[in-house]
């Protein structure tokens, strides 16, 4: 199951925001591996640290108020966190592409989409003017934009939400990235348009063999896309497993609760599971399990020690002191 071929290795990433109200411990030691060609889903509710994780490893965090307190992000043998800014710029948008939630805020409203795509090609490739235009048209065709050549002259506001997201995808793919990071790329879209985008990504993945990190709060969206899933809660990865395993056999109480709390389209289920309480505020560094105040299995140790990610099989890990299968505390130090 494990692919021994990591392309991105993140270790102990910690990012804080120093705000007027105090220090927000946005992510508190996030470690994960992305393998070549792999599709990694990242789920968690708002504020769990999904975006900050990805923005941190791309060093797109506003500093100040942000501060990357510790961590490493090894990409093709080099650490993105300590890399010179000039070098980083060539990686970002080049070997690593990214797409954010709201295409209106990430596209420049006063420039045509053709200009924006060609600008990125100019930074990251040595194509001629004509070569860049050809490549831009090819990219727009690739993402299914009708009348691609004419569309080069369109401004972002002249496109619908779904079309803008396609343009964003085209831009992120402009330089044939090895890794594509997509932060809730369909959250703002209607469901029939979301289905179009998901279909497009599925298709492109087969064609391009890019590794993808896809962030979402919707457990449905990644069910049919991801190879492996990370679950985030309170600025930590609390569970990690291959997709089928995670949904069929969740080993963290939060994942279990989340799966029970969402209704399903294909069946009229019984009462939804209530996860009581609210997500943690992040003004203090967690010294106990961040899920403890809401957890139905909580016991003494949970309030004393924050559990690390504990491997329970070759590919499945959970940050929990309770062994849900055997209904007893886990033997872990």
């Amino acid at each position, binding site marked *: 199951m494990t692919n021994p071929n990591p392309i991105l290795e993140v270790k102990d990433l910690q990012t804080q925001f120093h705000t007027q109200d105090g220090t927000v411990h946005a992510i508190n030691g996030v470690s994960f591996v992305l393998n070549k060609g792999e599709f990694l889903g990242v789920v968690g509710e708002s504020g769990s640290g999904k975006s900050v994780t990805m923005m941190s490893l791309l060093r797109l965090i506003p500093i100040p108020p942000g501060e990357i307190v510790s961590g490493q992000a090894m990409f093709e043998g080099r650490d993105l966190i300590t890399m010179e800014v000039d070098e980083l710029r060539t990686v970002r948008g080049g070997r690593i592409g990214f797409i954010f939630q709201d295409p209106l805020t990430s596209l420049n409203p006063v420039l045509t989409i053709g200009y924006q795509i060609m600008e990125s090609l100019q930074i990251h490739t040595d194509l001629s003017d004509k070569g860049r235009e050809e490549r831009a048209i090819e990219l727009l065709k690739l993402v299914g934009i009708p009348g691609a050549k004419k569309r080069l002259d369109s401004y972002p506001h002249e496109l*619908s939400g779904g079309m803008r997201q396609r343009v964003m995808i085209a831009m992120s793919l402009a330089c044939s990235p090895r890794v594509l990071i997509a932060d809730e790329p369909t959250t703002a879209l209607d*469901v029939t348009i979301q289905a179009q985008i*998901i279909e497009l990504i599925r298709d492109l993945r087969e064609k391009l063999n890019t590794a993808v990190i896809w962030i979402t*709060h919707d457990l449905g969206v990644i069910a049919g896309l991801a190879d492996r899933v990370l679950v985030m809660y309170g600025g930590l990865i609390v569970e990690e497993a291959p997709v089928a395993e995670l949904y069929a056999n969740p080993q963290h109480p939060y994942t279990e609760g989340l799966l029970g709390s969402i209704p399903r389209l294909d069946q*009229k289920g*019984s009462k939804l599971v209530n996860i009581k309480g609210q*997500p943690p505020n992040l003004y203090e560094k967690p010294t106990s399990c961040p899920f403890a105040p809401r957890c139905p299995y909580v016991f003494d140790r949970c309030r004393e020690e924050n559990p690390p990610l504990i491997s329970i099989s070759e590919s499945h890990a959970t940050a929990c002191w309770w062994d849900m299968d055997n209904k007893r505390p886990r033997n872990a130090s």
Partner: protein
Amino acid sequence: MPPDVPGNGAAAVKSAREVLVSVTDLKKHFPIMQGVFRRQVGSVKAVDGVTFDIYRGETLGLVGESGSGKSTTGRVILQLDKATSGSVTFEGQDLSVLSPGDMRRLRPQMQMVFQDPHASLNPRMTVSSIISEPLREHDQGNGDDRDERVDELLGLVGLAPKHANRYPHEFSGGQRQRIGIARAIALNPDFIVCDEPIAALDVSIQAQVVNLLENLQDLLSLTYLFISHDLSMIRHIADRVAVMYLGRIMELAECNRLYTRPKHPYTRALLSAVPVPDPQLEAVRRRVILQGDIPSPANPPPGCPFNTRCPMAQELCVAEVPEWRQLESGHWVACHFAEETPDTSVTTASSGPILTESE
């Protein structure tokens, strides 16, 4: 007490169902003004002729994509917006012909819960004054009675009496939605329009609010029009479901029937687009992928509003608006060719032949 199968409770089994709200050919067109003289150059047909009943005690789900006219329908039913034409009756009374005084007397029976719990609560008012505002407006009880009622309402929505003197910003999104719900039920309404009441909430909080709405429905015999774009949640909560597209209702049927045997090509496409949190199922599901975007409601296509994207469209679909007709008892549809859609599910793996197939 809540039935084991929520949303499938009392209302669905009752044999003789009483119509509480009846909507007939309801339209709401917003004028588009332009130029120095603000001349009207067109109109947004937000709601363009919808007809349906809401039965007492049921939850009618109203689904559709953004801009399809769901909120406008809800607001016009409650007379928060004036209809362009058509009628709404409540307990048999035509609301559009009521005098302002009569409407005011009827108002307590019809309430609304809004999507955004941040924007819909006045930040400068305490929770107590927010919840008791409708009581004061309708001169119900004295100060002590109202305080008592506020405590009772806080209890009903799962908040503590100590919360009464706090301000909205001191609460989380889910708690704010509870405050909005307490306010909506303050006057003992019969009917509540819930307009995307969970859309702004975190996934783990959505279930809390939905469970609360279900419990209150049973406890207080409420009737809901539940507006949402979340088709999975609608299946969970609704007894019957209406599907809107470009200001019209495309299909309306009993919930399980709509999800298992949808007859309108749009319903089929919409349902098949919704991802299910089940990797095994997703791996074998086939999807109807619609081409293109939703047309603008300022410039809807002639004939059937869905004809620009419908994989089954024929000449007739552009020439004539399909009639809103009953295919079988209780199953309404607006499509010329509804009889020809396959009688199969699009939500499960055994979807059988579908309209257009992607891999």
